[in-house]
């Protein structure tokens, strides 16, 4: 038996001080106040909150720190932050704001030594690697800078490389299914599964209802499910999702 509970992880994409959501990483629109929304998801039984600063430029950093500060004042579950994380100094600033772990995508692809540097300083458990996958032709590629640039590295190859590093988890995002609410990208999910990672793996992109999530978990062992649009637009309620999954004998955490 697996002891670990499958985590339900709201994913908050933030631009300046706003919670935003797009479809396939485009057509971004404001959907709320990230601080209020994070608090609500915490009270509804989320196991962790992931925050992605999608502007990730220097001038907007102070906004991000302030948002994280306010969220972590009220939310007593792990808060993980990504988006343009490039240096140890930068990570220390995030820690000061109350972030528990960091999520890195682009910089890990550009400079894999950074992975070693981060895990040496903060421990392997501290680091999540995010993969932003986009299908081009018949292959999935790792995209950078919130989907704007192709690293030209295939997801299957990057997953293989990542097995050489000490990391806490891999979050695999489908750009093609993002915001569509039509279900997960199963082909991508299988690629992630077949990589046989030793660390945790989380899937993100496409869930639109409870059944999508159950069907995936029933067939592939993911350690976490990351949800964006379906939560923001009230298609899924975390407490209802968890009760439903428990009834289906999926090992999720419920709180009193």
């Amino acid at each position, binding site marked *: *038996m*697996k*002891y*670990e*509970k499958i*985590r339900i992880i709201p994913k908050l994409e933030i631009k300046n001080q706003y919670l935003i959501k797009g479809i396939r990483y485009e057509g971004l629109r404001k959907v709320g106040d990230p601080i209020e929304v994070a608090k609500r998801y*915490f009270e509804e039984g989320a*196991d*962790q909150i992931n925050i992605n600063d999608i502007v990730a430029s220097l001038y907007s950093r102070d906004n991000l720190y302030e948002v994280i*500060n306010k969220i*972590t*004042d009220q939310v*007593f*579950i*792990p808060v993980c932050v990504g988006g343009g994380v490039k240096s140890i100094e930068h990570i*220390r600033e995030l*820690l*000061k*704001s*109350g*972030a*528990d*772990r960091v999520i890195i995508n682009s910089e890990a692809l550009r400079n894999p030594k950074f992975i070693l540097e981060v895990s*040496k*300083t*903060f*421990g*392997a*458990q*501290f680091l999540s690697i995010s993969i932003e996958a986009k299908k081009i032709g018949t292959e999935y590629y790792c995209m950078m800078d919130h989907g704007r640039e192709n690293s030209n590295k295939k997801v299957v190859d990057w997953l293989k490389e990542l097995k050489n590093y*000490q990391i*806490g*988890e891999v979050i695999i995002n489908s750009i093609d299914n993002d915001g569509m609410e039509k279900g997960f990208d199963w082909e991508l999910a299988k690629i992630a599964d077949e990589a046989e990672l*030793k*660390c*945790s793996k989380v899937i993100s992109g496409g869930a639109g209802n409870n059944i999508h999530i159950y069907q995936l978990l029933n067939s592939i062992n993911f*350690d*976490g499910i990351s949800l964006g649009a379906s939560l923001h637009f009230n298609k899924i309620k975390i407490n209802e999702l968890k009760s439903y999954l428990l009834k289906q004998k999926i090992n999720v*955490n419920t*709180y*009193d």
Partner: protein
Amino acid sequence: MIKIGIIDLKINNIKSINNAAKLFGNTYLINSLADYKEDTNVLILPGNGSFFQGMKIVKEKSYDKLIFDFVKQDKKLIGICLGLQLLMDSSEEAKDVSGLSLIEGSVKKLNEKNLKVPLLGWYDVSFKKDIKTQSFYFNNGFIVEPIKKDLIQGSINNTIPAYVAKENIHGFQFHPEKSSHHGVKLLGETILK
């Protein structure tokens, strides 16, 4: 009002532990020995990350002496995650580095068929007494192994130590401050007990 000192090792999120602890007393951060206040009732040694880095800072800043003196006065010390591991004799993570030796035993790399390593997420912890079995948030690749097994007051599946208590010393392998309302409540009960 209870006075709670929190040692900042500069390698992990200190804000959340402060947020949780301040619900139960007056907290302040310790960034050097000079910050320590004599009338402190509870000392918290948090942490997350490498044993080597953690002990390095403890030694450089002479927090070891502060901790030993504090415990000698029969005051309450709470170690969290790496903070608990530092209380042991040694760790497989850094073989040349000694721990604080407040609890006899070592820190071992997790090697358990049914577990992902590092632990990253929520696991049910069952306790020896008075505390209900509930899920808590873990984030660690190593685990403590006290020599005296009766010090283990809570565990995952009765095999992996999660809460260790020895007289006035309490150590959580999980993060109570990040384990929702019930985690914060457990931290509070430990502070006030």
